[in-house]
Structure formats: structure tokens, C-alpha cells
């Protein structure tokens, strides 16, 4: 049985669906729900994402049936039909997608059938039940992708050997999603592949529509987008490989090797790309040789975040940066199998660092875990403290950072204390940005 959550770091399924849809090119999401759902979701998406704004059709522009008490008693399907009909007259899009909130599902409205009546007349309109109680934002992402893959992506017989699709980077839940998708596009481009990311820079709906031509689907996650990949495989016969989201040379090298093997790229080619990227990376990182060692910039670190970022950040800090990420708190709602899978990512570091992994959805517990890992000073004269310390988490971790006097960088959702545009943290280039951001905080008062 699920439990309450102290300051959840995600919205409901509808929230995830809206975050996903409003970041597809020229897409008009239609909400069949109470009046407040869309407005509330937008405030959370905008405020937690480093200020993504309303984009093409997000925020208060989202068409919404705004069902009220009367509709809840008599049913809201007629209102939805009216809303769709008028949306098609006013809102200029190439793809329309009906999402539902809790209330209309609970009273038994069949939004999918209503949408189908328009689809049968040739409108590019799709629908899915995304009521909030089905799960969190990641669930909403999964539901939308599954629907689009099954119904929007056209069946193709011929495959393009040099084309792959990549997802698993959840728009907004990964605040740096757009920059990160560009990183993956470039990296796999170096291996000789064209990559559809659906949500990234320069993408069009045609990339999504023709995604069935791809030779492989790469899910850059072990937890997000896997169900959608299974649906894609069933419907379009395209296999998938799930490779953990990487930050920094160690993780990205593994990513490239795994992707290379799945794509049957020669070892030589893979090694060449790795070598080139690493040379570029260390050309910059070597600049820190003096300051890192002159003033001792190694830190104990606590990481708080989702199951994509936490292992990637931990690996980067331990393996690439030579830090001590001793405590990692993963805030997703995960099954036992998923927990086991994610935990494996922290084993066998070449640095021999062994982080303590905690699965906990509750924000107030972050301080407790830190206190437990580094017990408070009970008046000892010689005391091994959580110092020098650094906290990588979300904006919520400002509380813990304040309590422990540690510098803090918001990297995981929600981020309300930074503006994020095209910044990326994935791969080699992303790790350079992350290094800049972390070390800037450490030298910031000099």
C-alpha cells in the first residue's frame, strides 16, 4: 500500500502527461478535468523547472473542459465534445491529445471514445486516461508515450539502419532535459547515427510519426520509459536497450560502449569517440589542478534526487571528481525490482567509494538520514563531522544545506532557485557545466 509523501518531487499522472505533451512540437493538449488541474500543474511545472514558461501551448493556454459540480452529477462527455469541437476551430496544432483528470474518470466519462469520434473524421487527435490517482509524473510520461507509440507512430516495413530513437529523459522532471537530449544526439551522432529525441532541439512531429523506421530504441534510463519501449517493440518490432543515464567520463564511456555494442559499431570507432571526448574534457578539467589542490576542494557529498540523476551524480562525483558521495537518497516511488536494479549502479566503483543508498520519498527525512550517517557531536573533543560538505539535490534541499552549513546546488526537480535554459549535465560536456556550477559555489566567496 502506498503512503502519504512529505513534499513530493513530482506531480500526478496528469501533471506528467501535460509536461510531456506541451513539450512536443506544435501539440495542443486538451484537458478534460476540473478547472484548477491545468493551472495548478502549470504553476508546478514552471516553478520547478527553472522557469520553462508556457511554451507554445502550455500554461493557461491549455484548453480545458473545466467541469464543475453539475457535470460531475450528469456526466461530462458532452462538455468534452463541445470543448474539442471548439478547440479545433481556435487552437492551431498538428497534434491534439485529450488527457483526463481524476473526477471525470471517477464518474465514468469515456474521453477516449469521445476523442475517437473526431479521429474517425480525420483529425489527428489521441486520448488517454491520465487521472492523477493512476500514479506520479513518470507514470503520465509513460502513458502518453505508450499511446503515441501505439497510435500515432506509423507502421513501417523498411528500417533505416542509421536511425535510432532515444527517450527516458523525462521533460521537466529532468529540468535539463532539452540540453541533455542534445548531448545524446551529438554523442550518438559521433557513432554515426541519426537520433530522434521527439522533444529535443529541432525535432518535428514527423520525427515521431516516422519513428518506426528506427533500427533501435535507446532508453537512457533504467526506470523511466521502459513500458513505452515494450509497447514500441510489440507494435513496431523495434528492439530497445535500456542504458543508465550518464554524467561524466566514467558513466558516459559505459553508455557509449553499451550503445555501441547494441548498434554493432566497431570497437575501434567507439574507442576513438571516447578518446576524443575525454581529451576535450580533460583539456578543460586540468585547469582545476591548482585550485582543487591548493585549497583542497574535495568534499563529502549528499545526493538527493530521482533514479536517473542520483546514480549518475554519485558516479560522477566519486569516480570522476574524486569526491566522497557517502549518502544518496533516491526519492522516486519504485518497485522492489527497480530498487535492486538502481542499487547495482552504486557497486564496484573503481575508487572503492561505497555510498549508502536510501530509498525515501519524504523530504523531511533528508536531514534525519544525514544526522544518522554523520552522528551529531555529543561533546567529543575529536569529532569526524560531515565537513567539508556539499549537497546536490533539489531546491527543497536548501533547508538541509542551511542546517548543516553546506553549499548546495539544485540539480534535480524541483528547481525554483535557478533559471535553466539550454544547460545540460549529461555526458562529457554536461559534466563540464556541472563542474563549473559546483566549483563556482566553492570559490564564490573568494
Amino acid at each position, binding site marked *: 500500500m502506498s503512503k502519504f509523501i512529505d513534499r513530493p518531487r513530482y506531480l500526478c499522472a496528469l501533471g506528467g502527461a501535460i509536461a510531456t505533451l506541451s513539450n512536443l512540437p506544435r501539440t495542443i493538449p486538451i484537458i478534460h478535468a476540473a*478547472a484548477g488541474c491545468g493551472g495548478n500543474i502549470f504553476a508546478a511545472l514552471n516553478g520547478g523547472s527553472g522557469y520553462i514558461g508556457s511554451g507554445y501551448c502550455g500554461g493557461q493556454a491549455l484548453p*480545458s473542459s473545466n467541469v464543475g459540480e453539475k457535470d460531475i452529477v450528469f456526466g461530462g462527455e458532452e462538455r468534452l465534445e463541445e470543448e474539442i469541437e471548439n478547440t479545433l476551430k481556435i487552437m492551431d496544432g498538428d497534434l491534439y491529445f485529450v488527457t483526463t483528470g481524476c473526477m471525470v474518470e471517477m464518474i465514468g466519462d469515456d474521453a477516449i471514445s469521445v476523442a475517437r469520434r473526431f479521429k474517425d473524421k480525420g483529425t489527428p487527435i489521441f486520448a488517454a486516461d491520465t487521472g492523477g*490517482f493512476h500514479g506520479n509524473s513518470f507514470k503520465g510520461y509513460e502513458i502518453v508515450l505508450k499511446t503515441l507509440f501505439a497510435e500515432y507512430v506509423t507502421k513501417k516495413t523498411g528500417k533505416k539502419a542509421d536511425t535510432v530513437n532515444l527517450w527516458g529523459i523525462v521533460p521537466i522532471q529532468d529540468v535539463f532535459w532539452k540540453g541533455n537530449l542534445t548531448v545524446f544526439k551529438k554523442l550518438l551522432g559521433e557513432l554515426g547515427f541519426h537520433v530522434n529525441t521527439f522533444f529535443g532541439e529541432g525535432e518535428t512531429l514527423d520525427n515521431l510519426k516516422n519513428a518506426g523506421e528506427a533500427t533501435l530504441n535507446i532508453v537512457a534510463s533504467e526506470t523511466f520509459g521502459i513500458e513505452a519501449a515494450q509497447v514500441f517493440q510489440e507494435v513496431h518490432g523495434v528492439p530497445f536497450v535500456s542504458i543508465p543515464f550518464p554524467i561524466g567520463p566514467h558513466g558516459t564511456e559505459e553508455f557509449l560502449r553499451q550503445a555501441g555494442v547494441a548498434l554493432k559499431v566497431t570497437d575501434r570507432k567507439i574507442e576513438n569517440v571516447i578518446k576524443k571526448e575525454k581529451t576535450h574534457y580533460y583539456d578543460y578539467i586540468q585547469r582545476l589542478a591548482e585550485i582543487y589542490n591548493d585549497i583542497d576542494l574535495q568534499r563529502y557529498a549528499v545526493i538527493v534526487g530521482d533514479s536517473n540523476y542520483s546514480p549518475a551524480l554519485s558516479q560522477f562525483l566519486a569516480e570522476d571528481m574524486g569526491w566522497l558521495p557517502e549518502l544518496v537518497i533516491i526519492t522516486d516511488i519504485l518497485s522492489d525490482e527497480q530498487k535492486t536494479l538502481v542499487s547495482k549502479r552504486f557497486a564496484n566503483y573503481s575508487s572503492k567509494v561505497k555510498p549508502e543508498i536510501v530509498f525515501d520519498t519524504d523530504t523531511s527525512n533528508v536531514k534525519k538520514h544525514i544526522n544518522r550517517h554523520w552522528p551529531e557531536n555529543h561533546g567529543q573533543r575529536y569529532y569526524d563531522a560531515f565537513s567539508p560538505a556539499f549537497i546536490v539535490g533539489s531546491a527543497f534541499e*536548501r533547508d538541509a544545506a542551511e542546517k548543516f552549513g553546506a553549499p548546495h546546488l539544485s540539480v534535480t526537480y524541483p528547481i525554483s532557485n535557478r533559471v535553466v535554459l539550454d544547460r545540460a549535465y549529461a555526458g562529457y560536456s554536461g559534466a563540464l557545466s556541472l563542474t563549473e556550477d559546483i566549483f563556482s559555489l566553492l570559490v564564490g566567496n573568494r
Partner: protein
Amino acid sequence: MEYDYIKEKTPPVREDRLGSCGVFGGTCCGLSNQSQKGCLNTLKRTFSQTQGCQLNLSLAILNTIRDSVIIVHGPLGCGGGSSIFSAGLTRNLQRMRDPGASGLVWINTNLDETDVIKGGEQKLKEAILYADRELRPSSIIIVNSCVPALIGDDIDAIVAEVQPEVNAKVMPVHCEGFKTKIMASAYDSVYHGILRHMIREPDETTRVNETDLEKMKVKYRISRTVNVFNVSSMSRTDETELARIIKGLDLNVNFFPCYAHPNDFDRINEAALNVSICATHDDYFSGHLKEKYGIPFIIDTIPIGIKNTNRWILEIAKFFEIEESAEKLIATETRALEEALVPYRQALTGKRVFLTGGEIRIFATANLFENLGMKVIGFKSYHYDHFVDGLLDNVTDKENVSISVGVGQPFEQVNVINKLKPDIFVGHSGTNGVAAKQGIPVFPIFGQTANYMGYSGVFEVARRLNRILKNPSFNRNLSENTELPYFKDWFEKDAFSYIAGGQDV
């Protein structure tokens, strides 16, 4: 109006209590006529865009209450907006009142597919016990969302059951979104909870050696104290300015409910007068406090702009029979302000302005701008009720000035703005971005960190507006480089084509 709603567990919604309307499009004159005919409530939109709900707005108020834990009883997304968006800022704003304030902590009961069938009362109970045990707040505030209301969770019964076990004051707020489209119903929902659960009669304490003089001092202090009902959209500097004015009348002031500590509410009856700054917010609270404690109240105007600020002060002065000193204060303040405004008046005269936001605030702010020599060409009001009937009739050129009623609805707004092309858009957060993408300079109609109220507010508004108009390039560049999601022909049509009903119904 009678105020005895607090006998019931749940408050009425504004549509029922005040006949508030949320849909209209036309001119100020047309709105006034339709309102008199009583046919506003039959209007509806056949195309609508998302807005907000009374739960969102309830949280905007409740999140400010210090030393409290908010429990959102609902599925994971509910309340995420107000909480995620404002957590950091709220902490800082709380600390302006109390440097040790802990900031915003909230819990979501995470109702899922099983709970929708079996009910969510157990989860709520566990959340309350957790909050009390682990976080030790002075109050635990439960906001109820649509789902538990539909499945029939009895949150008042849960509160009654756990209250003896927990240290914190537990307060349920019935603000289910689907019950009303008038977001301002939130104020009643929140005050309903405060009146029933937050305000507790303080224990009668008799000091052993309290002299008659000391007793009289307390009595005297109360007789010279006003409670001002603040709103979460105002700033600490607004409060400071209003406090300065009230202290200038030799009166004491307390601010409720925003940023108050839960225990402060127990002393809310230690005042001679309750003063509202906005009828949209407080009539429910003021009315009930009068019923309960016999404290008289003033609901007249919002102290924005010279005219309204003067009027607000005079109403208070009238009650305490100190009009003469109030007139002196007003004269001194007005003279100094007028002098300071001269350069801004010159720069702003003739500018055409469009305003959106709460019904009281837009008309008061319009008056401020008119006083600066600007011309008001249109309004969008979040809702409409009898509190603004008089204000509407005072609008200059009311036969031609455009007004619509609704929250958000940017499709109507872009259409109107495209036709009217104002020099400045004075907007409520939510649709400022879209005005920006049309290249219009935007002045936010409220701000939690800026001064709008009182005399200093007039100067600050003029100064900021003048600054914004000095270089509107950012928005102009946006308009040249972004696209709006509407078909081109929509801009040719009547902005209110999708409002149906009304007179013919």
C-alpha cells in the same frame, strides 16, 4: 447580510452566497446592465482554457501561516503548484515577520487507485500523526481536494478523532476545486476553517496582582487597536506603509491572517475594529467576527491610489472620531506625494492601459493610473459580484471601455489586446507572458515583494511603470520571435464568440 455559515462543516461557494459570476464579455456599461437584470449567471464558455481552483488559492493564503504543516488530502498533483512554486519565497517572506520561521512544509496524502475505491481516511490520519510526531508544528492544516470529497471521506470526523492525540491545532479546510469556478470562494473556505478551528477562546487568566490601572491599560490598548486583514498577494512593504499610516493616527495595528502564527488567532478579538483592504477577500471573516465577538468592521475600498488611500484612512478615522487629525495627515501626505509625482505624471500622461486581475484591485489600480493622466481602455476581471457595481458605474467612458470576466482565458485576451493595442498591460500572473509575446510592456498588478499600497505605493508604482516603459525591448523582441497557438482567423473574430447564454436563455 447574515453571517452564520460557520455552524455548518462546509462553507457555501461564492456563486450561491454572493451570486458571483465568472463569465462575461462586452463593455462596462453592458456588464452593469446585465448585472442589474440578474442574467449573468446563465452565461458560460463553450470553449475554455484552464485556470486555477479554490484549492490553489486557499494554499496561497494558508502557506503563509507560520509554524504549520499543510496536508493536501488528494492525489499527488493537487497543490503542487502553490507549494513547489512558492516554497523558497514563502520561507523568506515568513522570515520578514519572524527570523526563525521554518518556512513551508507540506504533505500530500498520495491518494491512488486503491484509495479511490476504499477511501483515503486512514492515509490522512497517518499523515496528521506523522506531522505532529515528526515535525511538531503549532498547527496542522488539511486542505481537502476533489477526490476525497467525491469518495466521501469525512475529514472533520478524522480531525475530531485525532485532535485529542496531537499537540497541534488541527484545522480542516473544505476547498474542493470542482465545487466552484469562482476561485475567490477560497477566501471563504479558508476563513471558515480558521473561524471553526484556529481561533480558540484563550483561557481566562487572572493575574494575582493585576491592578485596576493595568486592567484599564489593556482595555485602552484594545480600544485603540485595529486588525487589518492582509492578503497573500501583498508585500511586507505594503504592510509597513499601512502600519505607518495607522500609527500616524495614533492607533495600533495587527495583521491577519497571512504570515500570522497559529496562536496569534486566539487574540484576534483584542481589537476595536476590523479593517478590510479588499471586499473580495474578507467579508466572510469580518461578518462572522462581528457575529461572534461584536467587533465592528469596515469593508470599503483597497488603499491603492491617492483617492482610495485617503478614503480608506477616513473611514477608519470616522470610526474612532479622529477625522480632524486624519484630514491633517492626508493633507501632509498628499502634498508631499503630489510633488514627487510631477515628473512621472509628465512621462505617463496619455498612455493607454489595459488591466487584469481581481475585481476590486483592477478598478482601484485603474483609478491610480487615471490620476497619473493615463487612459484606461479595458479590463479583465477574475470574477464579478455586487461589491463592484458602484465602481463599474464610475468608469470613465463606460459605454466603450471593454471588460471581460473570467480567470485566464488567454484566447480572449490575445484577441482583445490585438485589437486595442494598449501601451501597457497591467496583469495578473498567469497571462502576463502571453501579453509579453504580443510585444506589450507588462506591469504586474500585484507583487509579494513590491510596494503598491498607501502613499509610498503610488510613488513606487509610478516609478516602476516609468522604468518599464523606458525600455520595453524584451517583450518587443519576444513578439517578433515567438508564435501564439491560435489560428490567424481567430484574431478577426469577436473575442467573446464562445460565450453563450445570457439574455436569451
